[in-house]
């Protein structure tokens, strides 16, 4: 039997990569920097919203209410003012996101049980922060009202006065949060970072390496030798598989050791799924390289088909269920979607193949399709 020529090609490609220290360094630094950013800096948790307070009533009750806002930790009083005009200025300069306006006679109305209104003016330009702030305000007002109402009921209606608040109120919601009880953004983002890094590495970097050889003419030299196309292909891809695995290990290691992200499921399954995903992504990189004749086209094609969809359409940054129906259908074509669901399932939910087989199947199909298309295109370019 003839000795396989995969190994020498792999060795050659590996030397190329190792010699290019900066490329190698960035492939490892990128996931670490992103993890650190997400771990320390980036959070959806909204706290310390700067508020302008205009309290025209200024009675014990309103002061008590303001105290409730402050002690919730969600709001800080950035300024107090008597005029609306100056309050609005804070908005425009971005120094405050919200104005709380308490009119004269507010506490009188509340204490006599009449309908009372607390006026909230919110800067809606950041819609998410605005929605969350309004949610917080409503929550605080509900708790505050609840106590007043229960007092009214006790005194006026002669209901058993010893009953506690929870026993008098008709329905109490007891919410429980599963999978990520502390609601840490980090736990959610680690799987996304892993899939994005693999996507960039497999889709962009490999295709660039192949197109680069094509452009320099060294590919033709390789073809002129007795190396078979499949040997050339596998040989060129193997080093990237290795780097990909190192990146997965690095991400998992940093997130578990430094950031205490839990891995509830099987680590073995995590690596198997990563291998399947990489198989497809590398195939995609191959396919891009056969479609693009120049490196700049490979970059644009690669960025457009790998990086951006895996960032935006995988559910990583924006939940898929919130997208319009047509775009939701498009996400089924994005392999990162399946991989992300799988990773999240393994990391946070601790579920196994019993739940994950449909996504795994889709990943396998994607991989087979990509490699099939790529090898067909590859053969044609070589012949």
């Amino acid at each position: 039997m003839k000795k396989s020529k995969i190994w020498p090609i792999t060795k050659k490609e590996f030397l190329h990569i190792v010699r290019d220290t900066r490329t190698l360094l960035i492939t490892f630094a990128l996931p670490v920097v992103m993890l650190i950013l997400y771990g320390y800096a980036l959070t959806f948790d909204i706290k310390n919203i700067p508020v302008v307070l205009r309290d025209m009533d200024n009675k014990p009750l309103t002061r008590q209410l303001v105290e409730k806002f402050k002690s919730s930790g969600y709001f800080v009083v950035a300024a107090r003012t008597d005029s609306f005009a100056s309050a609005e200025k804070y908005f425009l300069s971005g120094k405050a996101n919200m104005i709380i306006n308490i009119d004269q006679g507010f506490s009188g109305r509340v204490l006599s049980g009449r309908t009372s209104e607390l006026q909230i003016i919110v800067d809606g330009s950041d819609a998410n922060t605005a929605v969350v702030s309004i949610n917080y305000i409503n929550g605080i007002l509900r708790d505050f009202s609840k106590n007043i109402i229960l007092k009214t009921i006790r005194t006026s209606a002669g209901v058993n006065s010893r009953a506690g608040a929870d026993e008098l109120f008709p329905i109490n919601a007891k919410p429980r949060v599963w999978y990520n009880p502390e609601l840490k953004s980090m736990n959610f983002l680690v799987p996304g970072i892993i899939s994005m890094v693999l996507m960039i590495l497999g889709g962009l970097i490999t295709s660039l390496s192949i197109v680069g050889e094509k452009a320099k003419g060294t590919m033709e030299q390789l073809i002129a030798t007795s190396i078979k196309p499949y040997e050339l292909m596998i040989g060129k891809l193997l080093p990237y598989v290795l780097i990909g695995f190192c990146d997965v290990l690095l991400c998992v290691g940093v997130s578990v050791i430094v950031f205490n992200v839990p891995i509830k499921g099987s680590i073995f399954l995590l690596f198997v799924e990563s291998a399947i995903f990489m198989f497809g992504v590398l195939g995609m990189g191959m396919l891009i390289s056969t479609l693009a004749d120049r490196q700049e086209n490979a970059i644009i094609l690669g960025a457009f088909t790998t990086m951006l969809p895996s960032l935006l359409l995988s559910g990583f940054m924006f939940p898929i269920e919130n997208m319009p129906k047509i775009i939701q259908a498009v996400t089924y074509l994005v392999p990162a979607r399946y991989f992300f669901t799988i990773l999240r399932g393994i990391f946070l939910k601790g579920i196994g193949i019993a739940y994950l087989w449909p996504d795994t199947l889709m990943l396998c199909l994607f991989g087979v399709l990509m490699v099939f298309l790529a090898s067909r295109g590859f053969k044609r370019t070589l012949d």
Partner: protein
Amino acid sequence: MLDSRLFHLIKKEFIQLTRDKRLIGAVIIAPILQLIIFGYVATTDVRDIPTVVLDFNRTSASREFTETFANTGYFSINYYVSNFEEEKALLNSGKVKAAINIPQDFAKDIKAGRSAEVQFVVDGANSNSASIILGYIQGITFDYSMKVLKDRFRNIGNVEDKINIINAKVRVFHNQTLSSTNYMIPGIIAMLLTLITAVLTSISIVKEKEYGTLEQLIVTPVKPYELMVSKMAPYIILSLIDVVLVMLVAVFWFKVPILGSIPLLFALISIFLVTNLGLGLYISTISANMQQTVLSVVFIMIPSMLLSGFIFPIANMPAVIQPITYLIPMRYFLTIVRGIFLKGIGIEYLWKDALLLSLLGGLIFTMAARKFRKKLE
């Protein structure tokens, strides 16, 4: 004449650019497509949360309670199950994000004037959605309770009239519909501009390096600045075309309002473009090949995008990290674009950001130009 040499160089770049039809297509069509897709995708609004109901009570009261949730539009009840195992399976598979568990004595407790405890389960994997869902749950439950209380005290003296809560009367400034699209689109424009200008300039220079044609140009009497200007000119024009196209899509397709001054917007966009060109130039001087270029762009762009306030508000970042964001040009640009688009404010509010952006842009550009000249000489 010096000027004519520069002119011919610019012409050469244009010819090279127009020859590559695919690249032109990518530069013109890709941003529009991306804006359209991202415009729809980039939403943090939470609606139609897929929900499962596990009702141990099965009375008209419990049905009414769960229907209240469906009627708000925030929850869509897709499944009714009869035991915890089925509920858990639905949550595990991700088919539902929330569960409502109604206890057996729900109706009896309410009727007797006792408290009924309803348990909710929320999928917390996406922490942002989860905290919004938790807020909705508390709100809807509370409103329903108030209704029950009012019914209970309907015939007892004047108590019913005294049971009132403090309502928050919310008025929204600047983005009345609270659509996250309005907030995201200016950010997407900034991101696309950065990608196109920085990526394409650095690629076009590194390409000449790789093919060795840059060295050929150096031995000619072409001066470094002429080379630099001629390399950038086509991309300045292309990105300005992109700005106009993308803006048209934003205004006419997504109906994002531009409340402020359009000339001011374009003036400040130009400053941002120069900053990005400088960034692209800088990347090209430190990159030997395409792989390095792409990785450097990704390595610089992604963190700066994430720290600019595009998706994650800067105010929420820890105090140690916040100073770093002052070094990111996109931070100032986002404040400016959002201010002009949504708040309609002018230079009297934006001068600080405009000044800092100009300073930072000037700094990046001079640094890059210097490094580029040194490389060539």
